[in-house]
């Protein structure tokens, strides 16, 4: 067990007795709780829980933590050593990423109007138990169905007017657990649109039934059937003898590879994976369970592994207005390596993930994941549970930031073909798709 822990940490831990370690842990826990209580007390003064949960970005968590002096360029600048910044101020003033909202993930901020199903869903989002664009979107829509089912229009109000105001806090809560994806945004717009066109003369039950039906339609047409279409088109691109490199785990890529294998195509798969989510492990397991020959590697081995690959297959988080692809962080690196070796890159994405937003780099808009994921030693189960990771307690260290960005942007000319549910298109045709299928994004 100790063999795998990192030596510097292990020593101090090893010297402690079990009781001492436990005491230390308890102490840390108590400190954390005290901090949280301070935050809560501060919040209590400033408006209703729901409004503070949404309105004041990023101000919550860190304003309560003790102010830590931070010296961005410590050795050279004497001025900065004398000024003390809070960690949050540092991000706001000095960082490229200060504009990106971080999900606070505090469930106690949920208002009474948040439906239990949504509460549960929010937690699952937060813990990354439901992960991946399609899964999150389907789960959200399913949650909305429950909300609509249990909804009752108050007196002196009509459903098309009131239901959106009832959905808003649900959405706000979900976003506070984890920022929503482009596809989820499109799905929400769709639901709101469907609500807005409900005939006012319909009875409540009829309206609800219709809405639930329309939500099911969305899931079926825009996700389930779309995936089927994409899979069939993507299968054409897999031929005998291919070595297909994939990154992380995408539901559509997984389906395509499994189907290609079922049809008896002879190919190998290289699963390239990236920290901290390491989603690719599951993919590697699932594929090899089915008898596909898999090579699992981390992104560090990229330049080496790309020599073998004949194709690269990606899923996507979103398709941006200029044809660039927003994908799991690390995807752009893989695409670039592929371009360098002239390995064609195939991206599979449903059209409901399209947005007119254009983004030239990953800093404009992104999601900052919990830094703990990068800090924690998630490496293996055999490590001693109490073993301390080298970066543990990074919040207390001046001049050390941990950045866990979730997505990156792969530019148009690094992608060979984009396979959507309306067929394979070059990425340069995305503006055309957006124009022709504008109603499909409900923008």
């Amino acid at each position, binding site marked *: 067990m100790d063999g795998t822990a990192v030596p510097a940490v292990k020593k101090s831990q090893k010297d402690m007795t079990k009781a001492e370690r436990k005491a230390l842990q308890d102490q840390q826990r108590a400190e954390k709780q005290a901090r949280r209580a301070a935050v809560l007390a501060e919040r209590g003064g400033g408006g209703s829980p729901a409004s503070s949960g949404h309105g004041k970005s990023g101000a919550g968590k860190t304003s309560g933590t003790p102010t830590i002096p931070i010296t961005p360029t410590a050795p050279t600048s004497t001025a900065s050593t004398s000024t003390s910044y809070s960690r949050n101020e540092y991000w706001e003033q000095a960082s490229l990423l200060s504009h990106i909202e971080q999900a606070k993930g505090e469930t106690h901020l949920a208002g009474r109007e948040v439906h239990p199903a949504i509460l549960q869903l929010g937690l699952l989002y937060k813990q990354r138990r439901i992960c991946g664009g399609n899964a999150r979107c389907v789960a959200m829509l399913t949650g909305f169905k429950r909300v609509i089912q249990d909804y009752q229009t108050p007196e002196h109000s009509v459903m098309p007017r009131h239901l959106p105001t009832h959905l808003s806090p649900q959405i706000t809560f979900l976003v506070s657990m984890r920022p929503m994806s482009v596809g989820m945004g499109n799905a929400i717009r769709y639901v709101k649109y469907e609500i807005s066109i409900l005939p006012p003369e319909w009875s409540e039950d009829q309206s609800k039934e219709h809405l639930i039906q329309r939500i099911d339609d969305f899931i079926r047409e825009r996700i389930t059937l779309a995936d089927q279409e994409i899979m069939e088109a993507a299968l054409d691109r897999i031929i005998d003898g291919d070595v297909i490199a994939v990154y992380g785990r995408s539901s559509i890529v997984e389906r395509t590879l499994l189907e290609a294998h079922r049809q008896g195509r002879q190919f190998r798969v290289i699963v390239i994976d990236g920290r901290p989510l390491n989603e690719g492990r599951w993919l590697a397991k699932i594929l090899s369970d089915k008898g596909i020959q898999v090579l699992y590697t981390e992104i560090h081995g990229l330049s080496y592994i790309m020599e073998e690959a004949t194709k690269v297959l990606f899923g996507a988080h979103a398709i941006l207005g200029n044809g660039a692809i927003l994908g799991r962080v690390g995807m752009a690196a893989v695409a670039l390596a592929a371009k360098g070796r002239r390995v064609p890159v195939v991206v599979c994405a449903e059209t409901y993930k399209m947005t007119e937003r254009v983004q030239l780099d990953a800093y404009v808009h992104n999601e900052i994941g919990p830094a703990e994921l990068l800090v924690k030693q998630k490496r293996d189960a055999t490590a001693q549970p109490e073993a301390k990771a080298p970066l543990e307690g990074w919040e207390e260290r001046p001049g050390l930031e941990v950045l866990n960005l979730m997505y990156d942007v792969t530019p148009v000319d690094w992608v060979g073909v984009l396979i959507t549910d309306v067929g394979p298109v*070059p990425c340069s045709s995305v503006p055309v798709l957006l124009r022709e299928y504008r109603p499909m994004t409900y923008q």
Partner: protein
Amino acid sequence: MPTQQGDTTYEETVTHFRDLVSTRSLPFPVAAFASLLEHARRSQALTISELTHSLSEASTHLRLAVSGSWPLEAGCMLFKRFFATVTANSVDLEMGRRDLLRRGDQYVATACTARETIAGLAANFIKDDTTILLHSYSRVILALLEEALRKGKRFSVLVAEASPTCSGKETAKVLKSMGVTVRLIPDAAVAALIHMVDAVWLGAEAVAENGGLVSQVGTRQLAVVAKEASKPLFAAVESYKFVRKLPLGQADLPVDAPTALQAQGESPGNEASKDTQPDGEEDIEWIKPAIDFTPPELVTLLVTDLGVMAPSAVGDELFRIYG
């Protein structure tokens, strides 16, 4: 009944297609379109759905007759789309067929004027005192150079011979007869002579959805050389050659696809295409692909009958046609 109609009708359609290509020298997509139109004219189908079925069978026969030809594929796809649009509002077969034939004939007539439109547009791109590099044989290119001459442009031409068909020789002959200063160069000399060139002009057999060109083998390497030397590369293509396919690279092209000229069976200057090999080399294996794929990054502009466009606009036009 589609089954009773029998193979003879399909065979006739294929023969008709070959006739159109060889005697009227129609380009593949137009010939495919016209022969399918002819098939509809002769068909004894009693309902629209029968006719639809019969036409799709005929397309399949055409595809089998010249397997792996994307230009032909483009024609078949266009016809299918055209048929669906025209007959969408038809009440009965006769009305549908009448509309189809009338508008189809119009379409073929318009398609045949595409070349002149392109020539008119492209001639403006040819400047005085320039040297143009050509590859293999293309009727659009010849038409546009003729138009440029008519407009009083003075230019000289280098023609890459385009081994193994050596169709460049035919181009050179035609240009010489027009009175153009023309010199043939071996394919291997393209890089050596690119410094003499001001612009590269190419025809193509088909244009993929991303604006890449499918054309006679050797085009891609010429395009690579032109790019390296920063020489503009223009492709003159009729819009009916746009095909809704998206190759990721050379490997996605149909294997053993013939060039349009080869399939026509009367390739100009065709001496090298017969596999006569010098003594003692019979047992050495050759690979002789007929076509290659030039990626859109290497193409500066496309001059088409729909206007002058960047390669990425091809996808847009295809959307307009196929939705």
